[in-house]
């Protein structure tokens, strides 16, 4: 049985004059201890997916349809108290910018212990022991002293380690990491990712890694979802998607990677911008930027279909695949 | 290039205005407030035409007419719509002239605040360094003293020094000066913050590269970007200035009873409130509150629409 099963999840934002659909019929599965990457440009709906799973969408966003089955039960209809019992306990989240994630006026110890107290009946000594243990797991030097420190006394990398330790405090089954290294120095990004990978491995924790970096996804995850304008446009095993992308958007993303471009040449960026959520074209949302778009693409929304080892939402996937194969052989 | 940079603010201006117009039409509170404010302003401006009597003309005042109640109460005189005050002046006329004074003092004082504050803020932000430090330290200290306190002491001393007669003659200038000078840091801090933010942006560099002097860069390029916070501050400041003026006049440190603003009118009425002549206090009081309230409501609405980054202490 899978750990997480999302069916037709939709999220809308109720604006003053209209409701805007930010997520449209998202479906995916996640096995126990499995690691899944969600990639896409900013605004594609990656973070919203993460927050929707935690039922933490901030107003005016709300889940407008679909179901989220976590650990055998549908959590979309849970009350506040029941949902609170899951958050931080069975399902933990790592935020993007460690500089603003921790409360500046509370000590690290206060912020760690409150998470433990919220979900377990523990004495102060027991809770402190657990916190120190977890800090040690993320290689924080002299963890006992950290508990009395305030966030501003620690570096960004150190804070993100602490946040990872906080995510692991209650041995959750799933961690949702929303761009956990984007705000950090390039030099420590790899360290943090490695640490996250190692801990998910050793603790058998499921991971949903939200990122715009295909390189990170290929190192960290077993399966990948590619999102565009609030929809999943390609999904499958990470290896397949990286090596043989089907959707023209995924191909574009991979071609835009610096590794794909010889030094001294311009990066091959995808021309144009993602449509804003208030003005999504009637057909395939990617059609305006797509070199292969036909009249069909511009009028009819493509369904997600199985194509070889991956699922893809593209009308032209057959023709495209043949063309690119020919191109490659030619 | 230069035509582009000069066009930019005016185009932005137009979008900004249309946005404001839209939210104005959608907001009944703002519309009603504006309407009331406009009516009060028109009445104040045309007070000499509207008022049936001239409260400054001793020939039109008869002490025998004193303390007539408003017309809807028994024992009134139909000449006097809102009754008369303790000196026998027509209350309605006196209120019209008083509102005129209150508004005039409020607006002039805020204009003075804005002029001082914007100039100091621009200089502090643009020049930076020691001058900036000094000016901002002065602003800190000035802000830590309550305006009203400073104004009360200043006016009290001035009054004692020159004697009531001379003081009363120039009271309006003293009021404008003291309220105007005491509150400049509000503007200075906000303008300075915008200048610091804008100074980093490319267009300021390009203007500098094009050889424009600092004066021109500040006035033509940086100032337009501070307009919305200045606007929002100004509405609140006008409301505060009117309250300050009324409070000072109430204490006898502002406009004299012979030439009353709303505050001095309320003050003179207060002595008669125990004997039952409530209207001398209450009617100008209501006018004062309504005036300040609609300005505050407009300020609130403007803050919501423009959503400026105001400097916070």
């Amino acid at each position, binding site marked *: 049985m899978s750990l997480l099963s999302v069916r037709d999840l939709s999220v809308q934002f109720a604006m003053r004059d209209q409701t805007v659909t930010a997520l449209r019929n998202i479906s995916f599965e996640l096995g126990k201890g499995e690691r899944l990457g969600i990639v896409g440009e900013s605004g594609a709906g990656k973070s919203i997916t993460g927050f929707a799973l935690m039922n*933490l969408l*901030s107003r005016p966003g709300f889940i407008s349809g679909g179901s989220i089955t976590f650990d055998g039960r549908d959590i979309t209809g849970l009350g*506040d108290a029941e949902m*609170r*019992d899951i*958050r*931080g*306990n069975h399902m*933990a*989240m790592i*935020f993007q*910018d460690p500089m*603003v994630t*921790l*409360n500046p*006026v*509370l*000590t690290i110890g206060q912020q760690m212990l*409150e*998470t433990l107290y*919220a*979900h377990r009946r523990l004495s102060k000594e027991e809770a402190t022991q657990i916190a120190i243990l977890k800090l040690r797991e993320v290689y924080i030097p002299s963890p006992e002293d950290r508990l009395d420190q*305030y966030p*501003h006394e620690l570096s960004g990398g150190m804070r993100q380690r602490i946040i990872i330790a*906080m995510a692991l405090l209650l041995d959750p089954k799933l961690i949702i990491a929303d761009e956990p290294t984007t705000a950090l120095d390039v030099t420590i990004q790899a360290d943090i990712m490695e640490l996250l990978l190692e801990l998910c491995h050793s603790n058998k924790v499921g991971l949903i890694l939200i990122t715009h970096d295909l390189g990170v996804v290929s190192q960290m995850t077993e399966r990948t979802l590619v999102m565009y304008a609030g929809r999943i446009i390609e999904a499958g095993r990470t290896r397949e998607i990286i090596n043989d992308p089907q959707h023209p958007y995924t191909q574009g993303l991979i071609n835009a990677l610096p590794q794909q471009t010889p030094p001294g040449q311009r990066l091959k960026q995808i021309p144009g911008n993602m449509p804003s959520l208030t003005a999504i074209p009637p057909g395939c949302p990617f059609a305006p930027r797509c070199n292969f778009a036909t009249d069909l693409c511009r009028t009819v929304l493509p369904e997600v279909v199985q194509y070889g080892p991956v699922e893809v939402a593209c009308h032209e996937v057959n023709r495209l695949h043949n063309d690119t194969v020919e191109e490659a052989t030619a | 290039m230069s035509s582009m940079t000069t066009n930019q603010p005016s185009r932005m201006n137009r979008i900004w205005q249309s946005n404001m117009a839209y939210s104005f039409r959608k907001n009944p509170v703002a519309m009603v407030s504006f309407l009331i404010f406009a009516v009060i302003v028109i009445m104040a401006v045309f007070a000499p035409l509207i008022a049936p009597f001239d409260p400054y003309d001793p020939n039109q005042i008869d002490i025998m007419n004193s303390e007539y109640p408003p017309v809807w109460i028994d024992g009134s005189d139909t000449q006097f719509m809102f009754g008369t005050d303790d000196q026998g002046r027509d209350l309605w006329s006196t209120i019209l002239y008083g509102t005129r004074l209150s508004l005039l003092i409020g607006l002039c004082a805020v204009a003075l605040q804005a002029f001082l504050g914007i100039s100091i803020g621009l200089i502090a932000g643009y020049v930076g360094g020691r001058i900036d430090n000094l000016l901002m330290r002065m602003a800190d*200290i000035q802000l*830590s*003293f*309550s*305006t*009203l*306190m400073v104004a*009360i002491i200043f006016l*009290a*001393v001035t009054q*004692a*020094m020159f004697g009531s007669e001379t003081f009363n003659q120039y009271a309006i200038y003293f009021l404008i000066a003291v309220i105007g000078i005491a509150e400049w840091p509000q503007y200075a801090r906000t303008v300075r913050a915008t200048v610091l933010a804008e100074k980093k942006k490319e267009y300021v560099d390009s203007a500098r590269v094009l050889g424009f002097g600092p004066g021109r860069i500040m006035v033509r390029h940086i100032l337009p970007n501070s307009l919305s916070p200045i606007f929002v501050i100004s509405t609140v400041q006008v*409301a505060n200035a009117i*309250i300050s003026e*009324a*409070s000072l006049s*109430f*204490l*006898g*440190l502002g406009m004299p009873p012979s030439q009353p603003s709303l505050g001095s009118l*309320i003050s003179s009425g*207060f002595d008669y*409130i125990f004997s039952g002549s*409530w209207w001398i*206090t*209450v009617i100008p009081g209501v006018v*004062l*509150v309504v005036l*300040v*309230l609609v300005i*505050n*409501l407009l300020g*609130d609405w403007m803050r919501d629409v423009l959503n400026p980054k105001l400097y*916070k*202490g």
Partner: protein
Amino acid sequence: MLAYLVKRLFQAIAVMLVISLVGFAIQDNLGDPLRELVGQSVSEEVRQQLRDELGLNDSFFTQYIRFLGNALQGDLGTSYFFKEPALDVILKKLPATLELVLGATIIIVGLSVPLGVYTAIKPNTILSKIIMGLSIVGISIPVFLTAILMIYVFSVGYGWFPAYGRGDVVHVFGYWNTNFASWDGLTHIFLPSIALASIMLPLFIRLIRAEMMEVLQSEYVKYARAKGINPRRIYFLHALKNTLLPVITVGGVQIGTMVAYTILTETVFQWPGMGFMFLEAVNRVDTPLIVAYLIVVGFIFVVTNTIVDLIYGLVNPTVNLARMGA
């Protein structure tokens, strides 16, 4: 920490020096101490002689130093009207004013925090809208008008509360007269305290609400939610602690404003405090008393501002007092 304290102290002393200079300049230019001393009937030679004896012909600077020296020893001159040391006159009136400020502060702190937090957490309820609506009306009514209306309604109209004075005060600690120890005293201080609080309370409600709403949008509050923390703890610990930090700074300045408003409140309620005394002194051109008031009020401002700054530094962990002293 110590370095910061010393630095802050120096700043406070500098401000006090400026205030004393202003005070001295007023004394130097306002009224003729000689006339108060000997009246009109003394010949010109005797006058000159007296001026020399009193040092009134010395240079401005010498006189200022003498003024400063006396002030440091608590001698701020003798009130023309009361024929008593000006400082003594003020200190006798001080408790009444401070009690009024205390009463208003209790009302402001007691109501602004819960109401501000409530309107921030539940901005769309009818109650919140009523509170916000009333608060904007509240900041639009001048303190003196609130005071007058309360007297008119509750004293003249219903006769529930006395209209003026302090009523029965209880003598405590040998020096202080308090309103808070007897029923009659409490009824007398009730209306003036509300009047004094009336413009500050809505201001603080709006300030707390605005800060709180901003804090509730912050990442760390979202993160606290993601940890499954009880909302009550999020609101009253995570959010409120961050909300109150900027409020403390504003509060320090507002205490000074409140002293100014005591002049208005005391005038309307004929409250025998130092604000009421000050206006009387102005009408009598009692220069030493005016100057003494200026210096005492300046001292109160400087002390409260310094204390508030220190409290802010102690409460806010991101402010390093030790480093700020450097």
